């Protein structure tokens, strides 16, 4: 029962990263675009994302609901110990959600789209960074349930090099996804090649931040290397992800089919995420050696049987409703990105 709920949680986080993450990434990319051609590419990005924007966003709500109902201790631990980064993330999400919609609809006589764009870009980077920080803090083990001082309770869990690099890694990952997806959305070869270039750059950023992540983990007393080699699933996922970078790189350099690049990029991200899952499982939040337990396990945090059954029923029924609708949405807007989108 609990395993099935965990699987739903893992899936909704995965979809949030694959779809929502790409939306974050698009905002990050905009930051780095050349001023002179930024406007036109922003229009392309808006057009590509607008129909699926809200749907992509809801995966997070779903994940939050699962944790809240199924694993209440995990939920309260995260929202208390990581209060500050969670709030920072929320501010970012509110900012970009509004700015994106406003930019799309507020085409009035005087143009404020520059302001909206700025907010959208900055808050996309900001939010991605804090998503990484929160994920990092769950792995690092600095969360203490009975911390006595403000500093120990609310700052120590996340303000450290490892979480910082997790934040950067997350930004690079999202930007890579966005750039690769956008190649397929662009129509003219020039724009395509721009996004191809950015996809390559984001890849380089990934390759740089990845090892830094491992180094900073050791610095923060998280034996990531040991954990990594001790866990065959994790080892497999990360190795496979790294190997897949090669064909992605080739596909990007040779201007291969956008679809293949997309599949490769999505697979890499999926593998990275699965590697992280493998590292964590069955823990939701890892504690370091000084604590009495390894951390908060999904199984000890799980809500009573009846609740899990009800939650699972809701998830299965919800999926039966949502997946066909979602498939229709993507079929209408993403199958053929060639036609003009309405107003």
């Amino acid at each position: 029962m609990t395993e099935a709920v965990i699987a739903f949680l893992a899936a909704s986080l995965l979809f949030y990263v694959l779809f929502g993450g790409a939306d974050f990434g698009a905002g990050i990319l905009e930051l780095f675009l050349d001023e002179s051609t930024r406007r036109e590419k922003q229009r392309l990005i808006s057009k590509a994302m607008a129909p699926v924007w809200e749907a992509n966003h809801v995966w997070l709500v779903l994940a939050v609901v699962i944790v809240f109902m199924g694993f209440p201790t995990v939920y309260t631990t995260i929202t208390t110990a990581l209060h500050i980064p969670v709030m920072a993330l929320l501010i970012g999400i509110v900012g970009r959600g509004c700015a994106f919609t406003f930019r799309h609809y507020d085409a009035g006589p005087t143009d404020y789209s520059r302001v909206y764009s700025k907010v959208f870009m900055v808050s996309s980077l900001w939010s991605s960074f804090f998503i990484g920080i929160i994920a990092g803090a769950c792995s690092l083990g600095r969360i203490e349930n009975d911390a006595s001082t403000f500093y120990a309770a609310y700052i120590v869990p996340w303000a450290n090099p490892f979480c910082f690099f997790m934040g950067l890694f997350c930004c690079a990952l999202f930007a890579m996804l966005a750039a690769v997806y956008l190649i397929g959305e662009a129509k003219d070869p020039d724009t395509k090649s721009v996004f191809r270039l950015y996809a390559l750059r984001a890849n380089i950023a990934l390759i740089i931040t990845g090892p830094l992540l491992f180094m900073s983990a050791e610095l923060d007393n998280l034996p990531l290397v040991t954990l990594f080699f001790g866990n065959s699933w994790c080892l497999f996922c990360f190795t496979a992800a790294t190997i897949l970078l090669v064909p992605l790189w080739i596909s990007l350099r040779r201007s291969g089919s956008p679809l293949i690049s997309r599949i490769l990029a999505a697979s890499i991200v999926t593998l990275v995420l699965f590697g992280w899952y493998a590292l964590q499982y069955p823990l939701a939040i890892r504690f370091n050696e000084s604590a009495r337990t390894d951390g908060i396990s999904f199984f000890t945090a799980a809500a009573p049987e009846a609740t899990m059954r009800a939650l699972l029923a809701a998830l299965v029924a919800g999926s039966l409703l949502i997946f066909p609708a979602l498939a229709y949405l993507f079929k209408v807007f993403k199958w053929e990105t060639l036609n003009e989108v309405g107003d």
Partner: protein
Amino acid sequence: MGSKSALRFEPAIIKCSRILVKESEAKQSSTPMDDLLAARLQMAFTLGFHIIFASIGIAMPFLMAASHRIFLKRGSDLHLRLTKAWSKGVAIFFAVGAVSGTALSFELGLLWPEFMKYAGPIIGMPFSWEGAAFFLEAIALGIYLYGWGRVPPKIHWWTGIVVGLSGVASAFFVICANSWMNNPSGFDWNEGSPINIDPWAAMFNEGAFLQGLHMVLAAFEAVGFGVAGLHALLYLRTKHDLHREALKISFVIGAVAAIAQPIVGDFTAKMTAQRQPLKLAAMEGLFETQRGAPLVIGGLPSQTERRVDYAIEIPKFLSFLAYGDFNAEVKGLLDFPEDEWPPVLIVHLAFQIMVGIGMLLAALGALGLLFLWRAPAAFLSKTFQSALILCTPLGFIAIEAGWCVTEVGRQPWIIYGLLKTSEAVTPRPGVLFTLITYAVLYTFLWLIVIFLMKRQVDLLHSDLNIRERPK
């Protein structure tokens, strides 16, 4: 919950509160009362914001779909434009409502970790259903907004309806959770923690259906009158057919809801009398338990003097309204320990405001429907239109007041009779800081949404080549 079942819980409550008191004593140094107040204010502020956006998200898609339907039937360009204009409003409000709702789902944990720890397994289910409904709404909205010319017209119209229906469903689910806080059920307390959890029984607690219906009707009423008021203003200024049509559609929807609302409201009050007599006493400002209790209209209750000044009293009417019997006994505040009273003044005034507005809108709605049926000219007359303009914000004020009645009226409990709000608040210091952050953020959002709506109207007018007449 009646006093009998409260008694049944007593030993468990004592145990539970002993544990919580111990915990809060340990945290005492970092949890002064101010933090509780700040957390409550932050909750009030963000929910007060969200409830308006959620209401618009519930009702507005139906207005849009109604106009769309007329367009499909008559092929009138006017209704097509109106549909598109309204759908843009829906999109903007949905986006802001969605992000503010996401923020809320985290905020509950940030501010009330103790509450969430107990409540999550019991009442998480309506939230998970709400998540599903919200998801469907987001998908349908995406298809609706961008589906012009890409989706077959019939399906396109239906996606609009799905947007509205999922909004209504979301509202019901969220209200299920809120109603559970008033009527906790579906579990037993044991050693200060819930056992024998039955999430279905918790979700379908006794209050859920009525409270949900009351809220959904309120949303239609507020949005119907709100939109009608705005278009009345624009109609008086421009005399354009588009505004006239918009006015009719929104008014009819608002008026029907407003006429149905007092009936549902009456049932809701009867339920409150059964399950939360203390709340009803505070709503009515009734201090002494009496047979044949009078209905107190208006007035200022004084908690220390234990009386209501400057009120109009209708003898025996409260007994009738609450129990259907002019001589029924209605429990007064003094029957309960004073430290369990909600702030009587706030609850009483909020209730008066809600009921007053409800009555006014129902009367105006009936009159307007009569005009539309028999005397269309009177409906479009300047006097009636001006009345509508004045009513623009009233429905929303009533929603806020009603929410205030149910939430402030439940104080000092967060789960009625079981867990006090002060015991559920976050141990984290510095809630004041998050309060300020949220307050600034949400105020700013408000301003920008108002500004955007103004610009949307300007945009529409420039599209239609309307020039506003000088006033």
